[in-house]
């Protein structure tokens, strides 16, 4: 009797677990579709070309940041410094631009400034073996101070027609922001899944000792991960300046937390070794869709952080079933 029933039960349980595991893997895309359907039913204003176009533009900055965070999370690290690296890079852009150095030079300097922060993070974490959490928490504060010193705490207006065009225009209906965000996501996907460096990153994150044992330069790989995150901050900063018409020296805590949330929602493990670029993209879009939809439906401001946090907790819960 028991012998006969056991395989059946086992099969049932396996089947159940399989579907839960599948749901866990696709939590962010499924969540995104659910959110779209709910808001579509709730308001006729959600699923219109102009709103979706705007939603994707609004999500671009977060998406680019999440891509950098994705790389660091893949090697089992975390980058808290993005919250100040972005305004820092934006401030460098603003400083250079207002000193009349031209837009090309300014953008190059901004990217280099952001890259420099990433490299320093990487050196401290990888070479000096300091804890990633503490290192990037420290640089979050230090870099924020540099930004305030550079700008004297003031917003630096960047009045550039080119950057404004970048934020508003595009090729036909395809906005420049999407193009840039898509390129960054495609590059990160390519790096992680199509190159040897990507494989090294995944194995470093999965088991650093085993990776070191098999001859991977784990220090170099981790340094590279933090440097990449720094560089994506720089790209995000250019988008930020384009969109807000200037460099605001304030810490961008919301963007920092959302960038981590997007990666977690996407199904990447914070313990490293597992990455999902598509998941992180969906995660970033999901977070932005929630805010966009709430704005349209006019749900009180005060519920929004609750909903966003709830979604992240839900994703964390589902990821328990993921193996």
């Amino acid at each position, binding site marked *: 009797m028991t012998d006969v029933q056991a395989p059946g039960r086992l099969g049932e349980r396996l089947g159940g677990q399989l579907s839960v595991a599948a749901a866990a893997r696709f939590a962010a895309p499924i969540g995104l579709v659910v959110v*779209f359907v709910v808001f579509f039913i709730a308001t006729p204003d959600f699923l219109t070309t102009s*709103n979706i176009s705007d939603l994707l533009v609004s999500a671009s900055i977060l998406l680019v940041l999440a891509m950098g965070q994705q790389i660091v999370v893949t090697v089992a690290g975390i980058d808290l410094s993005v919250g100040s690296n972005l305004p820092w890079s934006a401030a460098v852009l603003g400083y250079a631009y207002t000193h009349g150095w031209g837009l090309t030079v300014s953008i190059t300097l901004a990217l280099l400034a952001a890259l420099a922060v990433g490299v320093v993070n990487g050196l401290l974490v990888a070479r000096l073996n300091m804890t990633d959490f503490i290192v990037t928490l420290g640089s979050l504060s230090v870099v924020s101070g540099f930004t305030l010193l550079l700008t004297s705490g003031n917003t630096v207006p960047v009045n550039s027609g080119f950057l404004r065009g970048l934020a508003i225009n595009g090729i036909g209906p395809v906005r420049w922001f999407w193009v840039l965000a898509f390129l960054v996501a495609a590059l990160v996907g390519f790096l992680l899944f199509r190159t040897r460096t990507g494989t090294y990153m995944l194995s470093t994150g999965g088991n650093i000792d085993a990776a070191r044992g098999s001859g991977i330069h784990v220090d170099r790989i981790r340094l590279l991960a933090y440097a990449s995150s720094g560089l994506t901050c720089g790209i995000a900063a250019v988008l930020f300046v384009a969109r807000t018409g200037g460099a605001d020296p304030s810490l961008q805590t919301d963007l920092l937390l959302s960038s981590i949330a997007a990666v977690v929602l996407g199904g990447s493990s914070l313990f490293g070794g597992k990455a999902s670029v598509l998941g992180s993209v969906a995660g970033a879009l999901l977070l932005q869709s929630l805010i966009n939809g709430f704005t349209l439906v006019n749900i009180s401001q005060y519920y929004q952080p609750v909903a966003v946090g709830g979604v992240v907790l839900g994703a964390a819960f589902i990821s328990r079933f993921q193996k």
Partner: protein
Amino acid sequence: MYNHTVRRSRTAAKTAAVAATLLVGVTGCGRGGTSSSSQSTSDVRIAIVTRDFTNPYWAALRDGAIAEGKKQGVKVEVQAGSSETDSTGENAKLSTLAGQNYNCFGVVPVNATNVITPLVPVAQKKIPILNLDTQIDAAASKQAGVSYASFIGSDNLSAGQQAGKALLKLMGGKGEVAILQGIAGEQNGINRQKGFSQEVAGKLKIVATQPADYDQAKGQTVAEGILKAHPKITGIFAANDTMGLGAAQAVRNAGLTGKVSIISVDGITAALQAVKAGTLSGTISQYPYAEGQLAVQACINLVQKKTVPTRIVAPIALIDSSNAAKAISSFPQPFVPFTNPLTAAGK
């Protein structure tokens, strides 16, 4: 309805495909494009975007706008970012609303430039825009092709001057004073400090000027530090109420209540109550609630193609122990009548 049933029965991937098809279909039908030219108040749709609602000041602006909208029978939508410095969050909210069919916008910027880019499509559609409370960079706006029908806000220079006068009186015209500044670079705070400094120049000695970011806890910490470093000060000017309340707590903890006078700016409920209780010497009350009402009235005028003044000055008043009770009972309305340029000209 049929569509919904169909979509529920499909797989996730197909749902996305259907949604995409619907997207094209929906927009093909031109949903949401009802820009009729008739001008009754029922066609007025007003969108107002401010910094955040955790600051009671902006919450009062929202309440005033919504109350006025109800009274006039027009649709008013008020949205905000998540903090005083959330420049991208506010920006995203504004661009979301800009894609909807509102026919008048009122905007409080986080900084001088952060709202200009999303306003460009609004300006291109010739939809009137009101600049509320904090001035948006005029040169950058002009270059982007954005112009504002009117600026509605209180005169912060004058608020600073009134604060200076009040503190001079409280301190007997002499002594050492400290200034708590707001967020660095924020124009209203700069103007308040400028007005204050002009007023007390040559009479009071400003011994410390430090930013506390419009934050109560920070205001307290900074004020504690200042009180230790400059034990002789007898006055504190805080550029807003939350910092003023923080300073009041610091003064009370140091056992100096009554010896150190504190004047702040804004007139939020907590500050009015502190003035009544005697922990805060006074506040220069602004009326964000009235600002919200004025914004809605101005929008109605603009949609109906009536003119509005290019600058509408919202009322301010000094609230001290003598009138705090009266101010609390009439809150959030001003307890002294002010001349409303809109009702005078419009209806």
